[in-house]
C-alpha cells in the first residue's frame, strides 16, 4: 500500500514543472486518499492543485547505464528481455501491472509498467517520460499512464556486462544476467509450440548447497542429469508462484569437472525472510515455531469430484456432495523474520502425530471434532519444527507443501551457555 503511495508521489513530482517537496505532495495525496478518492483521481487533483499541466514534455534522453534512482522524465530506447503480468491489490481493486526486464547496449534494468502497453519479449520500445525508483540498490524503471511508449523496428545488441554470481537461495524473480553454479538434479524434455514454431523445452531442478530452483532451457545445451554446470547470463522469473531460472540463447553453459554429492544440495536451512523475499522455491528447508493452527485443520471432508475441502458438507463448485474424509494440518510457522503456512497432508500428519486417521475419527466420534484440533495444537503450538517442501507464493504469502516435518529438540542449556560466551566476546 505504502509502495503505491510512494509510486504515486513520485509520479506527481515527476509530472510537475516546478520543484515540489516530496512531503508536501505526499501530504496532499494522502489527504485525498483518506477521503476515499481513488488514487488515480487523487493524483490528478494534486497535480491540479500544484498548478501543473499534466503532460510535461521536456524529458531527458539517457542510456540505461546512466539512469540513477530518482531520475524523472526519462527518455530511452530499450529491448524487452522479459515481461510478465501481475495482479496487485490497489485500494481494494485488483489491477494488472506488468513487471519485467528491459535493456540496451549499456545496462539491463527491471521495470514496472502500471498499465497495459501490450509489451512482449524482444519488443524494442521508445519510452518517453518514465521515472526511476530504487529496488535492491539498483534503479527500477516505472512506466506510468503518463509515459509514452512506442514500438520501433530498431534492434538493440544487449549489453554484455559481467554476469553477477548468485547462490541458488538468493535467486529471486526480476534478476537478470545472473551466473550460478549447480548440479542438474533432474531434466525433462518437452515439445512446445511458440509462435507456430515447434521448439524443444528442457526443464528440471538445479541445485547448489544453498537451495534448489526450477529451470527451463530454450535450446539443447547438451545437459544431462547429474552434470555440474556453470550457467551465465540467465534470468529469473516468477512461474506458478515460485522463482524459475531461464536460460536462452543469450546464456552460456559450461560443464564443470566437479562433483557435488546429492545429499549436500539444498541442505542449508533458509531464514523465513529469504523464502518470503524469493517467493518460494523447490524442496526448501525452513525452521520456526508454530504460532497458529489455522481453521480447516484436523479431520475434513473433500469433494469427490474436485477434491476441494467441503464447508458444512457443501462444495463451492459442486454443491452438496457425499464427501470423502481426509486429514490435514495448516500451521503458521514463524522464525521471527518471516512466516509461512505449512500444509501437511494425511500421511505427513499421521506420522507427525503418530496417530492414524481412523484413530482420529474414533476420537472425534467420542469427544467431538474439536478434540482432534486440540490434540494437534497440543503437539505443535509453541513448538519449534523443521519443515521441508516446495514453497509457493501468492498475494497472501508463502505456502509450503510439507514433505517432511520434524520437531526440533534443542539442547537449551548448551545453546544458552554458548550464546552467553559469545556475548562476552562482543565487547
Amino acid at each position: 500500500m505504502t509502495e503505491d503511495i510512494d509510486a504515486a508521489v513520485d509520479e506527481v513530482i515527476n509530472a510537475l514543472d516546478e520543484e515540489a517537496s516530496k512531503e508536501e505532495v505526499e501530504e496532499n495525496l494522502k489527504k485525498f486518499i483518506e477521503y476515499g478518492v481513488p488514487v488515480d483521481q487523487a493524483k490528478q487533483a494534486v497535480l491540479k492543485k500544484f498548478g501543473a499541466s499534466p503532460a510535461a514534455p521536456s524529458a531527458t534522453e539517457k542510456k540505461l547505464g546512466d539512469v540513477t534512482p530518482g531520475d524523472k522524465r526519462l527518455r530511452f530506447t530499450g529491448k524487452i528481455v522479459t515481461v510478465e503480468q501481475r495482479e496487485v491489490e490497489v485500494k481494494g481493486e485488483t489491477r494488472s501491472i506488468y513487471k519485467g526486464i528491459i535493456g540496451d547496449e549499456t545496462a539491463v534494468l527491471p521495470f514496472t509498467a502500471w498499465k497495459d502497453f501490450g509489451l512482449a519479449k524482444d519488443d524494442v520500445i521508445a519510452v518517453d517520460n518514465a521515472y526511476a525508483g530504487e529496488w535492491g540498490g539498483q534503479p527500477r524503471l516505472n512506466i506510468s499512464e503518463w509515459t509514452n511508449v512506442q514500438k520501433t523496428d530498431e534492434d538493440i545488441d544487449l549489453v554484455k556486462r559481467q554476469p553477477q554470481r548468485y547462490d541458488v537461495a538468493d535467486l529471486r524473480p526480476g534478476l537478470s544476467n545472473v551466473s550460478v553454479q549447480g548440479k542438474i538434479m533432474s531434466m525433462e524434455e518437452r515439445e512446445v509450440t511458440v509462435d507456430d514454431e515447434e521448439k524443444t523445452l528442457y526443464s528440471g531442478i538445479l541445485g547448489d548447497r544453498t537451495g534448489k530452483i526450477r529451470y527451463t532451457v530454450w535450446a539443447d545445451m547438451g545437459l544431462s542429469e547429474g552434470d555440474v554446470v556453470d550457467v551465465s547470463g540467465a534470468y529469473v522469473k516468477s512461474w506458478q508462484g515460485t522463482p524459475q531460472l531461464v536460460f536462452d540463447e543469450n546464456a552460456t553453459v559450461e560443464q564443470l569437472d566437479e562433483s557435488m554429492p546429492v545429499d549436500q544440495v539444498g541442505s542449508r536451512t533458509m531464514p523465513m525472510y529469504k523464502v518470503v523475499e524469493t517467493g518460494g522455491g523447490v524442496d526448501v528447508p525452513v525452521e520456526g515455531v508454530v504460532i497458529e493452527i489455522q481453521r480447516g485443520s484436523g479431520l475434513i471432508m473433500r469433494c469427490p469430484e474436485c477434491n476441494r475441502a467441503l464447508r458444512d458438507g457443501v462444495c463451492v463448485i459442486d454443491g452438496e456432495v457425499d464427501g470423502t474424509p481426509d486429514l490435514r494440518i495448516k500451521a503458521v510457522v514463524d522464525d521471527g523474520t518471516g512466516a509461512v503456512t505449512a500444509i501437511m497432508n494425511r500421511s505427513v500428519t499421521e506420522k507427525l502425530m503418530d496417530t492414524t486417521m481412523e484413530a482420529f475419527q474414533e476420537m472425534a466420534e467420542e469427544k467431538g471434532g474439536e478434540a482432534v484440533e486440540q490434540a494437534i495444537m497440543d503437539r505443535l503450538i509453541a513448538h519449534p519444527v523443521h519443515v521441508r517442501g516446495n514453497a509457493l507464493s501468492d498475494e497472501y504469502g508463502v505456502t509450503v507443501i510439507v514433505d517432511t516435518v520434524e520437531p526440533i529438540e534443542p539442547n537449551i542449556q548448551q545453546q544458552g551457555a554458548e550464546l552467553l560466551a559469545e556475548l562476552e566476546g562482543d565487547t
Partner: protein
Amino acid sequence: MREPAWRVFAGEYNDAMHHIEGEEQMSPSYVVTPLGAMVNRLYLVGVLTDVENVAQDGEMWRAHISDPTGIYAVYAGEYQPEAASFLSEADTPSYVAVAGKARAYEPEDGVLFVSVRPEMVREVDEAMRDYWIIEAARQTRQRIEAMAEALGMNPPSEYKLRELGYPPALARGVVAATEAYDDIDVEHYRFLLREALSHFSSGRIDYEEDMDDAEEAVFAAVQEMEGDDGALWDDIVDHAAKQGLDRHLVEEALTSLMDKGAVYEPILGKLKTT
C-alpha cells in the same frame, strides 16, 4: 504479506517511544523499539503473573506476563474470545506463549504505552520458555549489532545494512529507529541481554545440585510460614539461614522458585506457594 512475529524482550519492547500508525485500513501499524524492531506482530513466552478484568462493564482481561527483562501487558476483550476465555480461567503463575499484535497508546506527547493484543494464547512448559529466551536473545543480539553498525554510518543506510546481510525488515526498522530516537544506548541492551541469559550461565550448572537442595528447603520453609497472606521474604531468608543455608543461595533459590512458578508474590515482599 503476513507480518513476522518478532521476538523482543519486554525490556526492549516497553522502551518503545515511537509508533507508526497505519494510514489506511490495509496498511499495517508498527511499534518501533530503540533497537529497530519494527513490530506489528510479536511472539513471546513468559510467566503469567496476574490476570484482571479491567473493563467498567463487559470484559477486558489484562494479563501480565513476565520475562527475564520485564513485564508485558496483554489485553484481550470480546474480539479475542478464545484468548479472553483462556486468560479468565488461567492459573497464575504458569508458563504461557502468546502470539499477538503490537498495540500502542499515546495519552500525551512523549508518553507511549505499549501492549499486546493476543491472537493465540496457550499454556506451555518450561522447555518452550527457555527455547524462546534463546530465540529472543539471538534476535536481540542481531538488532544490537545492526544498530551498532547503523550508528557508525553517516547517514544510516538501509541498503548498506542489507549488504551486510541483515534481513530487509530489520534494516528498515533500524534506520527508522535511528531517525526516531535521539540517544540509542546500545550498551544498555547488551547488559539486558546478558541479564536475560544469565539463566543459562555455566556457573549455575556447577551449583545446580546445591540449588536443588536449597530450593527444596526454601520451598518447605515458605509452605510452613505462608499462612493465608504469605510469608515475608526476610523471614524466609532468616529461617533458612538458621538451617545452615547460605543467605545468597537462599535468595537465588527463591528467585528460581518464582521463575519456575512454584512460588509467587501476591503482594510485594510476601511469598506464597502455588
